[in-house]
């Protein structure tokens, strides 16, 4: 009886070993992206509008969903254009653009000067950028917490674990419990770069989703969490007003105007970068994104419409 069991066990191990040895070469098949064979057609043949055009976009994970939605709507009206959108992160997108693998890099941060220089060196073209949406984050506390406003620096110190009691920021004598997202979340990175500017405290509790963060803060009077602005008006939590620095005015993110005017500090424009001034189908797609119809989709997907400053910024690329 016992011997048989060990034979079975040995059999499993043997089978596993065989599969391991024979299967080693198979890894490449796992690459996820389907690549149209003529990626940069969109740049080169702008004149013949009815010829089928393929545009490749890649980069920021926070932008993937909204850009894919925009592309879908655009393709419905322009069946000759096919647009593929992939993620990977802003850095991945920018380096793919420099290498010429994609046409547009989605990036939630501006390109660095060194990257712009690389692009010019590799592609012989200047970098042009379009801002097509605004991303914003609200800082949430329990509704019974008397604290109403904080500066960006204070929130950063709280999330770095340097401030651990609400009394240090003008609240009650009560421990702060940190709630946040996992490291692969776009908001995690946004918040880390803009607010924390260092390592998150180890004592931050990572919730599986934004609604879990809200749920946790509702149940914890000393809790603090961050979430997309859309979550800020849930019952049981309130969004803190945030001031850019000490002495400057704090703005409430639940007032749409404070976000669209750019006064609320925890926002960032979402960029799309291209090598060379956009033309043809590509230009047409960008114009659709910043049009009223495009901006309505942006709002539906949980982001904010671009501001007057962004429209001004876009002039260089779109006019």
């Amino acid at each position, binding site marked *: 009886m016992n011997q048989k069991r060990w034979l079975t066990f040995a059999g499993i191990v043997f089978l596993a070993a065989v599969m*391991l040895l024979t299967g080693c070469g198979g890894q490449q098949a796992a690459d996820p992206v389907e690549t149209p064979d003529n990626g940069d057609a969109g740049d080169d043949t702008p004149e013949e509008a009815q010829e089928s055009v393929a545009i490749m976009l890649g980069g920021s994970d926070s932008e993937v969903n909204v850009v894919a939605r925009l592309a879908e709507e655009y393709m419905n009206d322009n069946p000759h254009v096919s647009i593929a959108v992939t993620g990977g992160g802003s850095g991945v997108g920018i380096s793919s653009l420099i290498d010429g693998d994609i046409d547009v890099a989605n990036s939630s941060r501006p390109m660095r000067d060194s990257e712009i220089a690389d692009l010019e060196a590799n592609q012989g073209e200047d970098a042009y950028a379009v801002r097509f949406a605004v991303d914003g984050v609200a800082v949430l506390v329990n509704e019974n917490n008397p604290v109403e406003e904080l500066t960006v620096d204070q929130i950063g110190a709280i999330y770095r674990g340097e401030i651990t009691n609400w009394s240090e920021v003008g609240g009650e004598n009560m421990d702060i419990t940190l709630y946040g997202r996992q490291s*692969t979340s776009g908001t995690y990175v946004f918040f*880390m770069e803009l607010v924390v500017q260092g390592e998150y405290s180890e004592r931050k509790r990572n919730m599986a989703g934004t609604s879990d963060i809200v749920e946790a803060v509702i149940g914890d009077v*000393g809790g603090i969490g961050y979430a997309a602005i859309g979550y800020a008006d849930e019952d049981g939590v309130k969004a803190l007003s945030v001031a850019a620095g000490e002495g400057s005015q704090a703005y409430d993110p639940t007032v749409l105007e404070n976000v669209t005017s750019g006064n609320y500090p925890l926002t960032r424009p979402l960029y799309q970068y291209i090598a060379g001034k956009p033309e043809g189908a590509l230009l047409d797609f960008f114009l659709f994104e910043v049009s009223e119809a495009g901006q309505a989709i942006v709002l539906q997907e949980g982001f904010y419409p671009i501001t007057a400053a962004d429209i001004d910024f876009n002039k260089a690329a779109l006019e």
Partner: protein
Amino acid sequence: MLSLSEKVMKVIFLICGLAIVLFLAGILFTLLSNSWPALREMGLVPFLTPGRWNPGAYGEPTYSLFNMIYGTFLVTVGALVFAVPIGVAAAAYLAEIAAPWERELFKPIVEILAGIPSVVLGFFGLVVIAPLISRIFNIPSGITALNGAILVGIMAMPTIITLAEDAITAVPKEYRNASLALGGTRWQTIWKITVPAAFSGITAASLLGMGRAIGETMTVLMVTGNMIAWPESFLDSVRTLSAGIAIDIGDVVFNSTHFHALFVAGLLLFTITFIVNLLADILIHRNPEVNK
């Protein structure tokens, strides 16, 4: 002489049996091949030594699983501490004391408990147990290792009850009769004779319950807070290996170091569960008293 149809059926059943082996081998292969790039890059040591799981670091990413292993240990041990005594006592009652109609009523209830989806239990933990823990222990948040341990204990209990009951029932009648004939009470018979005689079976039941507890993901993910720091006590938030994988795997960049590091965590979890189940299996089949 076997008829043709019997031969065909034999082959079909053999294929079904082999399929299980193939699935297991396939899973093991996937785990090994996907964790290999991370192991080749860093070796096994950084994963198993104290440090921080910080793949999305501001500075240099680090991939220590140490605190998560401890978190898994805390939740599992916490779960067993109350699931084993209650489970074994319930099993002893069912096997030795309960009237047949009580057994008829009780056993389906145990099965229903086993069938509750883990996400439902997790929600129960979040909405009911968390506020309770926070009030009883006067701490700001009830999202703690204790909460996870309670729920995982509840989930492991049906396994423990069912298997322990089988083990106790399998103790030969002569044992009980001898004890009762010598003037032992029912209580003495159960505690001094029947349960010790079924000891290896009960241990196996507990180990299989433990295997269930170690791998449990959704419930733990929802109620333990998933903090990566070293937990100070049962009333602190923890992250287990399974929850750690589930949190990150959804939107990790495909084929990145982080992605492969998650497979290392999976491989570790697989190894631990495999060893626990193997031990239980060995114990079940080494049951000398009963087989005599």
